């Protein structure tokens, strides 16, 4: 097994391209090193992306934030402007693992590891986050919901990697939130996760919404029907009930030790309703 630590995205793409299927990106390593130890993944070429400045920085432009795919949770948690504008995305990322894990785990790794239960992903989907992908053919921009294709698998081609994420600037009267259910208060994997991002008008009527769900299907979901149920309402009980029902209807979960199919379907609706309320209150406070 060999190790490379390129300092530019182009060099990382070249290294991954040369390695082909035997290559693997190392970002925070909190999933990869565990998988290497258990034998689930056995890469021959490890490409460490943490020495690429572009992938390690958070920048604010007129259009929004560019968050490097190799920025650690503890680092994003110190970005006051991102927290102020995208509290749901930051709180989702910070729910992952312990303080020690937060010192290493990255947004790019959480996405590309391909876990259906990855906490940051439903929040990024709800936020309308775009992943910037670099590869042998240049760069392309892809909505986050199009990256995971199956548990442990992504739509990235040979030699491709996620360089950074683009989050828009927070529009007035808009807000986001993420909630997950686990059987204890810390250090567990989501049974269900729900992210909601929405915009209201000055009367409090929802103008647009996006809903992301995690751990209830082979990949995190963008649930357009749940979002549509919120639009045009003031998030009254009728609208919230419809959104919850739409979220439950979108689920295609598994039974496992964390929860049954029936339980996950039910909780997906409950968390969608609760996250929508939090996002709504944040939107109204964000005039």
């Amino acid at each position, binding site marked *: *097994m*060999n190790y490379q630590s390129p300092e530019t995205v182009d060099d990382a793409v070249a290294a991954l391209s040369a390695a082909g299927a035997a290559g693997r990106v190392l970002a925070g390593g909190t999933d990869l*090193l565990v998988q290497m130890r258990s034998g689930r993944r056995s890469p021959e070429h*490890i490409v460490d992306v943490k020495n690429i400045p572009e992938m390690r920085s958070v920048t604010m432009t007129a259009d929004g934030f560019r968050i490097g795919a190799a920025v650690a949770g503890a680092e994003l948690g110190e970005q006051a402007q991102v927290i102020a504008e995208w509290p749901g995305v930051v709180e989702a990322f910070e729910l992952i693992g312990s303080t*020690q*894990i937060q*010192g290493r785990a990255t947004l790019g790794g959480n996405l590309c590891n391909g876990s259906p239960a990855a906490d940051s992903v439903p929040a990024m989907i709800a936020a309308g986050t775009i992943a910037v992908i670099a590869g042998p053919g240049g760069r392309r921009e892809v909505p986050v919901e199009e990256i995971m294709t199956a548990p442990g698998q992504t739509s990235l081609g040979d030699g491709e990697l996620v360089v950074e994420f683009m989050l828009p600037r927070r529009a007035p009267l808009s807000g986001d939130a993420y909630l997950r259910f686990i059987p204890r208060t810390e250090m567990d994997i989501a049974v269900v996760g729900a992210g909601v991002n929405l915009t209201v008008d000055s009367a409090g009527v929802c103008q647009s919404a996006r809903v992301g769900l995690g751990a209830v299907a082979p990949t995190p979901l963008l649930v357009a029907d749940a979002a549509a149920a919120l639009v045009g309402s003031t998030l009254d009980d009728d609208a919230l009930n419809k959104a919850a029902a739409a979220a439950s209807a979108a689920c295609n979960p598994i039974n496992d030790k964390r929860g049954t199919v029936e339980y996950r379907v039910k909780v997906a609706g409950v968390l969608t309703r609760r996250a929508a309320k939090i996002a709504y209150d944040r939107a109204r406070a964000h005039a």
Partner: protein
Amino acid sequence: MSKHHISTSINGESREFLCETRQTLLDVLRDELGMIGSKEGCSSGDCGACSVEVDGRLVCSCLVLGVEVDGKEISTIEGMADGENLHPLQTKFLEHAALQCGVCTPGFLVAAKSLLDRNPNPTETEVRYWLAGNLCRCTGYDKIVRAVMDAADEMRSAS
């Protein structure tokens, strides 16, 4: 396979070592450098017994490759006491009997110091959340939390 030559700083001293790609920072500390204060518990980032700081960030050394720390600054439990003088956290762990078997203790101490370096006056809730990634099967955590709170008190009044 040729080994990697890594230059790093551990507890303020320049150290060099050779390692294979597969070796974790924990493997290097314990097996190559003889620094056995950091413990191997789960080797999957769940128990925190191997906690160290890399460039000021608390991490599990079992989830860091040795090759990754070239040019980095590492702090381990071996750097905590000042010679024969224990760090206030170490003293308070003894006073409160915040350890029994002791395997988790270095990780708890390193993690607790990392908290107090950032937040000298944490609430009990903040202490419990910060230390959620450190597992102890002996004490039931209460004595550990009390020791950390007491050490924080003492360090604040000393400063």
